[in-house]
């Protein structure tokens, strides 16, 4: 399992290679009409959305920071980022707290559905298409019982420059 993590974390390799190592357990979540999946081992916990302190002059999708048991954790709303789903915050809003190499980040999604184990042969290559999520952050597509899941390399995505979550992006 850990080798899969490691390799998917550094998946600048070809997509077929990506697929090879993509098997594993995924947490699936909903954004708008679409089903997504992310590696379960990156998930620290799932919690509700509350009392976010907004930060000045940040992109709209960065909602702010919350206190997670003494840690200051940024919250990103993927619905805003990818323009999917209805952006509203209520008691059903779900935040997935991710632990990416020691950095803790929360993402707001429309809902969390399931945890599934995916085998290699269930995962297909990504066709090149236009999407809001750059295909380089997509590991592959999985189809389970007529449903399609988009498997996201969440670590690559969250540390990407466009997320503006890391200091490399900071402009002075």
């Amino acid at each position, binding site marked *: 399992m850990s080798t899969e993590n490691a390799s998917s974390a550094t998946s600048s390799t070809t997509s077929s290679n990506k697929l090879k190592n993509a098997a594993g357990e995924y947490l699936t979540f909903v954004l708008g009409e679409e089903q997504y999946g992310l590696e379960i081992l990156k998930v620290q916990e799932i919690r509700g959305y509350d*009392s976010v302190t907004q*930060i000045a002059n940040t992109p709209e999708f960065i909602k702010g920071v919350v206190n997670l048991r003494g840690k200051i954790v940024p919250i990103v709303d993927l619905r805003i980022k990818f323009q999917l789903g209805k952006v509203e915050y209520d008691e059903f809003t779900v935040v997935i707290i991710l632990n990416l190499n020691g950095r803790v980040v929360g993402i707001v999604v429309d809902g969390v559905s399931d945890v599934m184990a995916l085998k290699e042969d269930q995962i297909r290559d990504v066709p090149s298409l236009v999407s809001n999520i750059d295909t380089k952050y997509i590991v592959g597509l999985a189809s389970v019982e007529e449903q399609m899941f988009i498997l996201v390399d969440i670590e690559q995505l969250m540390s990407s420059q466009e997320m503006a979550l890391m200091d490399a992006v900071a*402009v002075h």
Partner: protein
Amino acid sequence: MTIDMSQFYEVFFDEAEELLAEAERLLLGIDLDSPDDEELNAIFRAAHSIKGGAATFGFMDMTEITHVLENLLDKIRKHEMALTAEHVDAFLAAKDVLKMELDGHRLATAVDQDQVSDVKMVLKSLSEAGGVIVSAAHEPKAAPAVAAQAPIVEAPKPAEPVAVQAAVPDDGLNHFNIELPEVSEKDMTNLQDELGLLGEVVASKNDKGRYVFKLATDSTQADIISICSFVLDPDDLIITVSTNVAAASAPVEVKAAVVEDAGFGLFEDDIAPKAVSASAPTEDATANSSGVKIHEEVGYGLFSSDGKDNVEEGYGFFAPFRPHKDAEVAELIGDDTVATEANSGAVAVAKVEVASQVAGAPGGVERRSPGRRETDKAAATAETTSIRVGIEKVDQLINLVGELVITQAMIEQRISNLDPVLHEPLINSVGQLTRNTRDLQESVMSIRMMPMDFVFSRFPRMVRDLAAKLGKKLDFVTVGAATELDKGLIERIVDPLTHLVRNSVDHGIESPAGRKAAGKPETGTLTLSAAHKGGSIVIEVTDDGAGLDRNKLLAKAAKNGLPVSESMSDTDVFNLIFAPGFSTAEVVTDVSGRGVGMDVVKRNITAMNGVVEIRSALGYGTTISIALPLTLAILDGMSVSLGNSIYVIPLNLIVETLQPRAEDIKTVTGEGRMVHVRGEYLPIIALHSLFNHHTDITDPTQGVLVLLESDGKKSALFVDRLVGQQQVVIKSLETNYRKVPGVSGATIMGDGGVALILDVSAIIQMGQTSNYLTGAPPFAHYQSAQLIEKNSNP
């Protein structure tokens, strides 16, 4: 500036003890054939740190030993000399001597000067001769516990027999005859006075020209010995005891370990006895029929002559004494015969005999005097109550208390909806909970906070002494001593700062003559400063000395085989001094110059997630700047509200707060707003427009102006209202997020929410450069940069 250095002694003692223990651990684990360089370096660093600390506090005896030790270690570390078993032994012996001296300072126990000079000699001879000869005099001490081999190795200091005689009067007191070795008249009188505190003393001279005290006391022999040991070597004492038990029966011959132990308060027995291989117990192992039944008790009651206060009197002497254990390890037990005549009725004395007997028997007994000393120490340090706790534990505690506060706030909120009449008891209880929680939080927070003064005030003395020693003149200035810093950081910053200050005095500041020649005032200036800056605490050591010589550094680096080139930037060149073993000093003094300091500094700072930076100009001086992250720091803050958010402003940067009148608000070219405060016009920075934050209050007269001063610039920050003043724990935003312009960190408020801490100097700068008043969005540059990045991302 006068400082009571003794308040820091305890810290040094603790540190030194840790370092010694660490050094010992490393020494014991070292592989003689292929010693690990890193380990050697670590041992060296430990010695160096102890030396530094000891010198700071003026414990010259420890400095001397460590200096010699360090010389030797340095040679080995640089592979100029091969590490041999003798070295390790000598190092261990030195460690023990250091420990003894440390205890001497700490607990006022006696220090065996002979042993000290022995060890010093050994180290010196090793360091000079390449470690060939180990003279007989020290070998026994150094030899690590070897099991009894050849009977009889000459003890380092053959102790004279202690004769304990039973018989005589019946007055409830012990009667001791104490025969002193040759001592001066003065010592004798001192001793007599001291002993006089215990009971009646009669002094006389015996036929050998020695002084003899007759002492009637209810104290024990151990007490007497410990008193005597301040003045003379207890091994040279001859004490005869007369107990109060009249019915003397079969006298018992005892071979005792007591001679060594009699040196209570002496430390060489830690090592020496081990080495003094047990001689055959020979004689009468069986002689003392009387005491056999009390084997189990031999651990205590040594020397107790009335059999009552066994424990106390035994003073833990033989506490770790486990008869008949480890039969083969018959360490020690001198052949120094102690002829004790006691009657079998004198229980305690008989016990002594048994103990001794057992010890002397070939079956052997593990005798561990360190354990004994531990007991003494426990007694001695019972009053000094400080414990060292891992910072993670404190952190965890603080986080837990934070959680508790939040939970408590939640409960409070819940019950506020309840009918106060119906639920009065509950509401009262919650009130109590609130108070207790607040107290708890305050106490927990206070665990970690300390002013930098705690560190700074160590230095004036050190600097003075150093300057005097080196014949330099300098003024020592501290700035920002009130800056509060987390205790964890304070403790860890001491070592690096000590090194930096020493380096500055030794290498930085030139001699008065040199300074004169360079056209500078004879008296140099050394400044130590601390301040909160941006997201960090910056501690700087600045001297107006010679500065770093780029060419010299490069030459030295090339000689040391470091990869350097002429084209390196100044910063890179200066950073060379952080390489292990790098020193540009021509002469290695006992102050500095071994190149160990900077290596340690860098290591320690990096371990704290800090950054060290060197700024230097040849001929003008050097500044070494240490920036520590705020993660652990605590800040006195003023919380202000803006819309529905709370921001915290560092209190020390606030000049005053005011609610302006309309006529005090002026505009410049109809745009930039200024406020007129007591003859000064200050620019108004509206936080809501700077941060793009929605608020209903956009007219300064409706809100509050907070006058800020940073880097000599003043501005008025316009916020909605003041909320309150409080101490906050600064949390880094960068741990999980990134740096945000205008924000130095975040903190968790009482209600569990997050509040951002404003970076005042950045805000003042932003206020000046930003054109927010003209309608263009602030951070336009920031946002456009975002866009560019986005676009450049295919």
